[in-house]
């Protein structure tokens, strides 16, 4: 039984394997970027704006406010990363309503890649904000002996993030597949709707967790700076 779209290989040359995960991601990227360009190309500064611009503004402002609520006050710095994270996951899960579509998030490679992004984003943003010294100091606080625990914490956090998203996405697709096999009518529609809900919630949770990790690290460094 196939449990990941990685298994659908479309093109293979040596170690280069173009599977369904990568191709779907490209399609998603294309849709998102072209959509963004087509809307932002005709941006209006005045108060009479198009409904597409209004929708995009609502989404962007919503993400920005959410980031600020978590505690990241310079939301413009983080919105590129965290907003893209949320939008990619959200669009990726939203399209599950399309037949034969398999979300790239149901591949552990994708969720791991996203988790690794968060893993690196935390120190990168922290260093950008407070400098490398303050960031490194946070690893040996309150005592030097805490260093391995901090490192383990970072890795386990990243792993948990990756597996959580993969598990949820993959399980949704799996359950849908099983239900289609058992009861091909009505019930899979309900499950698809439910999948939409869980997908949206998961994308929100993933983004919020990433924001919280970045914010937590930033606050730690801030404390250091104050001490």
């Amino acid at each position: 039984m196939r449990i990941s779209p990685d298994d659908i290989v479309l093109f293979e040359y040596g170690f280069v394997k173009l599977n369904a995960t990568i191709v779907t991601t490209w399609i998603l990227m294309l849709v998102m970027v072209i959509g963004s360009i087509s809307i932002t190309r005709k941006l209006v500064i005045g108060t009479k704006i198009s409904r597409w611009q209004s929708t995009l503004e609502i989404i962007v402002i919503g993400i920005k406010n959410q980031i600020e609520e978590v505690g990241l006050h310079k939301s413009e710095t983080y919105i590129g990363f965290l907003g893209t994270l949320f939008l990619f996951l959200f669009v990726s899960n939203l399209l599950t309503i399309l037949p034969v579509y398999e979300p790239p998030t149901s591949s552990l490679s994708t969720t791991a890649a996203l988790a690794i992004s968060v893993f690196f984003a935390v120190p990168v943003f922290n260093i950008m904000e407070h400098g490398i010294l303050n960031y490194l100091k946070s690893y040996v606080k309150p005592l030097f002996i805490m260093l391995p625990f901090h490192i383990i914490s970072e890795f386990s956090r990243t792993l948990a993030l990756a597996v959580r998203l993969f598990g949820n996405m993959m399980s949704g697709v799996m359950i849908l597949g099983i239900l289609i096999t058992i009861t091909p009518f009505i019930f899979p529609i309900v499950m698809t709707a439910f999948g939409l809900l869980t997908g949206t919630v998961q994308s929100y949770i993933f983004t919020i967790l990433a924001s919280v990790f970045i914010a937590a690290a930033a606050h730690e460094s801030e404390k250091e700076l104050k001490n």
Partner: protein
Amino acid sequence: MLFDWFTLVAQLVNFLVLVWLLKRYLYKPILSAIDEREKLIARQLHEAESSKVDANRELEDFQQKNNMLNQQRHELLNNAISEVNAERLKLLEQTRIEVESLRLRLQESLKIEQQNLGSEIIRRTRTEVFAIVRKTLEDLASANLENQIAGVFISRINGLNPDEKELLFSALNHTTGEVSVRSMFDVPLVQQAAIQKALKSNFNIATEIKFETAPQLVCGIELVTNGYKVSWTIEEYLKSLENHIGVLLNEHKELKTEKIT
């Protein structure tokens, strides 16, 4: 296998590329647009605020000017009312004077008219009286009026008392020219001779006597010489009649004046 390293790296790269692309084509333009709009709205609010302040200031100015204008209007109105009242009083006074003047002129004109009427009445009365007397004498006594007047005149000359005669004599003697006898009518020749005879017999004068016609004498005859006069006319009777008519006219005039005032 659940995990594929190539896919992981590819997805990592894909995600980073997507981050860059969305940052460039989505977040940046949208946030810039929102910022611009916020600035625009803030500017508009600021402008609205300053416009409001300006409007309030202008309103105050306007109210102040309005009050000033109202005050000026009241002052002008009061001045105009005062001027109109003064003008009205002046015009009334002027009219009163004009009316008074008109009334006086009217009275004057009435008086003149009355005088003219009186004169006309007297003239006509004299003429009529003269005509009536003449006719009456002719009808009742078959006598000529002129003859009778001349007779009366001669009787008067003859009937003068000595003092009067003395005075007339003196006057006649001191006359350098002719002695004239004037009458309203042409004295008949017989009567002229009788008058000459009476004068010569009484005063012994050698001076020629001239007979003249004077219509203003109405009905009478007179001898005037060097400040002395002997005459007979119906003037006295006419004067009495005139007085009576004058009383009547005065009554009429008083009534008319009362009506005018």
